[in-house]
């Protein structure tokens, strides 16, 4: 019963927040509530026995996305030139019509979903059945890095492409990302330096743990990458990393390294194993770990660069 009550509360919270996000009068509230929404989502994942997702959502959905949104919100505040005024309001009668249509759609989806019988044979069952020969123990990781590894590979490409795409429309460094780079100076609060000195290694450690543990329990490259990215965001915000317009060679190599390594191993699989993206028997675990490590960096770096709004980052030596 309590579980039901909790679920209901969770659902109510999600719906209420969603409504506030799309309909509240104050934009800032929407942005902040979206971060809350992400956290609530993470709780929901947890409720639904999806701890991997809960971790990822907290780190990426709420964390990184939130940071991106906030910095974008700030950019929208800094009005230049003429004041365009608020966007025109959607006419009420039309909104009612839209609501009716949306209602019909929701009703339809709801009706279908409730009537959906779980099929006997699913890809998930197959995955669980083949878990033993996948080389890892966490079924999600097995799916991601073995059974359907092409998705993972492509998805990292997506991230890379997002970075490339952002470079196409990027503004100058002064106006990109969180705004002007603030050189870490003596004016900053006294606690910042020690905290960073503490947090940075801890975060790297946590990321390493997540990465390693992803093999048998919730965690993995995404989560680890998100945590690393969060560190990058922190360093960028505190002025420890300076944005540069073009990535250095090392950065470029890191950006593509994950995919290249993954592809190389995958293509080698055509020779040594049966098919492309197949791991040679007995080497599954090692290779997956290797790939995951490379992917962690390949995930973290674009995220940081996207937040920073720059092509690259340099360590700032004081």
């Amino acid at each position, binding site marked *: 019963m309590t579980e039901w009550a909790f679920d209901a509360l969770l659902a109510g919270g999600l719906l209420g927040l969603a409504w506030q996000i799309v309909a509240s009068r104050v934009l800032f509230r929407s942005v902040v509530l979206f971060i809350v929404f992400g956290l609530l989502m993470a709780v929901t994942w947890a409720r639904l026995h999806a701890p991997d997702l809960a971790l990822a959502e907290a780190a990426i959905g709420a964390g990184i996305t939130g940071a991106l949104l906030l910095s974008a919100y700030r950019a929208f505040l800094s009005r230049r030139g003429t004041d365009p005024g608020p966007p025109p309001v959607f006419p009420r009668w039309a909104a009612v019509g839209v609501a009716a249509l949306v209602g019909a759609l929701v009703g*339809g*989806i709801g*009706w*279908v*979903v409730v*009537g*959906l*019988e*779980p*099929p*006997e*044979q*699913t*890809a*998930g*069952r*197959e*995955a669980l059945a*083949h878990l033993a020969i996948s080389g890892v123990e966490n079924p999600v990781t097995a799916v991601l890095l*073995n*059974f*359907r*590894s*092409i*998705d993972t590979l*492509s*998805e990292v*490409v*997506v991230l*890379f*492409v*997002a970075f*490339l*795409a*952002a*470079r*196409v*429309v990027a503004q100058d460094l002064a106006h990109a990302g969180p705004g002007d780079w603030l050189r870490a100076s003596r004016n900053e609060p006294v606690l910042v330096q020690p905290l960073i000195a503490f947090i940075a290694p801890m975060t790297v450690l946590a990321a390493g743990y997540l990465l390693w543990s992803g093999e048998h329990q919730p965690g993995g490259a995404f989560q680890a990458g998100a945590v690393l990215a969060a560190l990058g965001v922190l360093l960028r915000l505190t002025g420890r990393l300076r944005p540069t317009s073009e990535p250095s*060679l090392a950065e*470029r*190599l890191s*950006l*593509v390294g994950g*995919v*290249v390594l993954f*592809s190389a191993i*995958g*293509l080698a*699989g*055509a020779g040594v*194993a*049966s*098919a*492309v*993206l*197949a*791991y040679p028997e007995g080497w599954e675990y090692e290779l997956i770990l290797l790939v995951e490590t490379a992917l962690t960096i390949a995930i973290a770096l674009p995220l940081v660069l996207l937040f920073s709004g720059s092509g690259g980052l340099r360590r700032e030596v004081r």
Partner: protein
Amino acid sequence: MSGVALPLSFFVPLLTALVVFVIGVRRAYGVILLGALTTLAVALYVAYAVAVGGPQVHYLGGWEPPLGVELYADGLSALMLAMTALVGAGVTLYAGPYLRGKGHDGERFWPLWLVQWATLNGTFLSADLFNLYVMLELLTLTAAPLAAMAGDRPSLAAAMRYLLLALLGSMAYLLGVALLYGGTGTLHLREAGELAGAEPYTAVAAALMTAGLFAKAAVFPLHIWLMPAHSNAPAPASAALSALVAKAGLYLVLRLWLWTFPALLSAPMGWLIGGLGAVAVVYGSVQALRQPRLKQVIAYSTIAQLGYLLLLLPLVALPAAAVSAWHGVVLHALAHGFAKAGAFLAAGNMIYCLGHDRLEGLRGVTPYLSVTLLALGLAFVSLMGLPPSGGFLAKWLLLEGALAAGQWFWGGVVLLGGLIAAAYSFRVLALAHAEVPHGYAEIRSPRRLPPAMEWAPLALVLLAYGMLLGGVPILELLDQGAPEGVR
């Protein structure tokens, strides 16, 4: 061996893109060309293998569906792959001098375009619904920045609009995939179709996926993003977007309806979707008629031409019409791909020479752009479906199918579309023939085109004409692995 060619067609351009990104375009131009040629070779090999040995299958990671992801090349895939490779090779050859001439170094363009190429190949080969979702997102994220590349107000707005609609579309698609997986437990395209049947959830899933793909492929009521996006992109990007990316979306629509949802394809459904196609054919052409710039005309023409592909759905259910319509639609996709790419590249030549693509500027450019204008003219001829182009063969087959089944309405749409296409085409071509107005003084003489730019459009367009000679082998290839109704 031949199985490896399927993943290679995805990995070769992808890795080329990554290498180019790392070592920089200036040093990697040879790599780009090498990658493009390799991809072309792989794609043609796949087509050959399919033609000789029937549909090709490759299980990625060695896992068979439903567990793993299957790459599957039947005749349709092979043809699309080959078309993409040929157009892609043309675009690649063209883009180098074009970007250099426009003062770009291409650092942004090349990786995006090569990844896009890889994604296109992936889209045509993948038989996995979720993998296709990833591919669609990749297409969106490579296409939108290309559209925004000009960086001015209209192109940014266009990219923004495109992005929003495309995201809505992909989310709808994913929702549909979720429902389908929830109902069948598999993500494999054909398996899901075999398991699903005509259930309520299939209907909703089909609706969501179709509508989502429509938003991505710019089918009639959701087409508004296409014109500004495609007309503002750099010419080689426009060519790829119009000829390939938009078509990939429609390719998926057809795949889904023929392989996954054939049970839902009732006559009213055919009328609804085919009707949208018909409206698109007419509407897009009429819009093209009033555009002041060349690339806008060509972009609206894309909207119209994509509409033809949807005419398959009402016809494919009729036994008398099915085979002809199927052949016609695929030929149309191919011919349109070549012709449209050629047209956009030709428009690029105009921009390169004159600095703009306003139609009025076509007056008196013939001496400088004769080859280009020939390519443009031939491309338009194929678009309006006049002989001896591939577009004509496609139209002939569509019409034959429609008339054989007594479907005069669809036949009428095909004909009407051709007529309006002729109207906008000749509006453009007439200006190319028009004399220079009185008092016209050339402020600066147009630039000379590098040979690659001069001939690439013509070569692409001529491919559309080569179909007159290769029609039979192409359709034999298409019959490899074609579904029951259209064999």
